[in-house]
C-alpha cells in the first residue's frame, strides 16, 4: 500500500466505514498517516432497533454517535467530523452547497487520498449523493492538484459497468481491528456479527475473503 500524506474519508452513515474500509484505514494509521473521517449524518433513520427494541427513532442518533466515536477510537482515527446532515436527506440537499462543503474540507486538509462512495454504484441514495459531492469538489480543482480518489462500489451492476476494482488491499494483519470496528456499531450489526463469528470460526473462505480484502475503484476525471 502506498504511503499517503493525509487520508480523507467521506461517508454519510456511521458504519459505512466498517465493512469496506476500516482495515485500510487502520493500515494507513499504522503507517503514520493522519486520517480524517467526515461522516455526514448520524444514521438517524436506521431500522435496527434491537429485538426487543432498545432504541427509539429519537434515541437512535445518540446511540449511533457514541458507536461512531467508539469505532473511530478502535481504528485509531484522531480526527472525526460529524457534519450534521440528516440520514436519507443528503440527496435532497443543494448539490452545489454540498460540494462546496466538501471543497472546504479538502482545502483545509489537503489530502493525498480521498475515500468515498462511487456515485451511481453505491446503492443507498445518501451514498451516491455523498460520492457525487466529493467527485464534484475534486473535479473543480486544477487537474494537477487533485488528490487520488478511491471509491467503494457494491451495487449489483457495478462490475458489469465499471469493471473490476483496480485496487485491492489485503487487510488480514488488522482483521482484529476491523472486526472490532464492525462490533462497535452494535446497534446496527448485532445480528450480522453473530452470523459472521460462526462463519469465521469455521474459516469459511468466502467470508474470510470478504473481510480480508478491501476493494476500491480509482476515479478517473
Amino acid at each position, binding site marked *: 500500500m502506498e504511503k499517503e500524506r493525509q487520508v480523507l474519508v467521506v461517508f454519510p452513515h456511521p458504519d459505512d466505514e466498517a465493512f469496506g474500509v476500516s482495515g485500510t484505514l487502520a493500515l494507513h494509521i499504522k503507517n503514520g498517516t493522519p486520517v480524517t473521517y467526515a461522516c455526514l449524518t448520524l444514521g438517524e433513520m436506521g431500522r*435496527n432497533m434491537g429485538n426487543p427494541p432498545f432504541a427509539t427513532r429519537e434515541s437512535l442518533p445518540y446511540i449511533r454517535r457514541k458507536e461512531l466515536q467508539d469505532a473511530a477510537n478502535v481504528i485509531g482515527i484522531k480526527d472525526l467530523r460529524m457534519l450534521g446532515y440528516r440520514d436519507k436527506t443528503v440527496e435532497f440537499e443543494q448539490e452545489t452547497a454540498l460540494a462546496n462543503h466538501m471543497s472546504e474540507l479538502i482545502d483545509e486538509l489537503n489530502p493525498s487520498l480521498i475515500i468515498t462512495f462511487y456515485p451511481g454504484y453505491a446503492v443507498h441514495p445518501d451514498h451516491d449523493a455523498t460520492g457525487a459531492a466529493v467527485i464534484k469538489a475534486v473535479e473543480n480543482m486544477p487537474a494537477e492538484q487533485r488528490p487520488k480518489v478511491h471509491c467503494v462500489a457494491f451495487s449489483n451492476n457495478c462490475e458489469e459497468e465499471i469493471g473490476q476494482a483496480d485496487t485491492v488491499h489485503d487487510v488480514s494483519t488488522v482483521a482484529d481491528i476491523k472486526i472490532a470496528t464492525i462490533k462497535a456499531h452494535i446497534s446496527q450489526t448485532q445480528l450480522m456479527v453473530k452470523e459472521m463469528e460462526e462463519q469465521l470460526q469455521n474459516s469459511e473462505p468466502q467470508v474470510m475473503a470478504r473481510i480480508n480484502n478491501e476493494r476500491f475503484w480509482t476515479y478517473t476525471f
Partner: protein
Amino acid sequence: MELVVKEQVQKELTKLTNKDVYIHLETTNGAYASHFDETFFSSGAYIRNAHLKFEHSKIAGDGPFRIGLKTTIGWVYAEGITHFEVDSQNRLLLAGHDFNGKLAVALEISETPFE
C-alpha cells in the same frame, strides 16, 4: 419501548387531544430492500415536525395496531404499530417493528418540536 397496551396508548393520545403538537410520521422498508431483492418495490414516506392539532384520536385493531388522528381539516394515520413509549421529554413515541425487529413505521407526537 414496550409492547402496545391499547388502553394505555389511548389514554396518552387523549391527553394530547386539542393541543398544539408536532408530528413525526414515517414508513420505510429500508434503502436496501431493492438491492437484496430486485423484484421488491421500495417505498416510504417521511414527515418531521408537522405542526397541527387533532380533535379526536383512536387506536384500533388487535395488534399490530392502527392509529388515526382526526384534525380540523384532515387526517393522520399509521398502521402496523407494535410498540410505544412516553420518553423522558414526555413525547409519545409509537413504532411498528417487523418480524426481524426492524422499524417499519413510526408515529410520534410531541408538544415541543423534534430536533
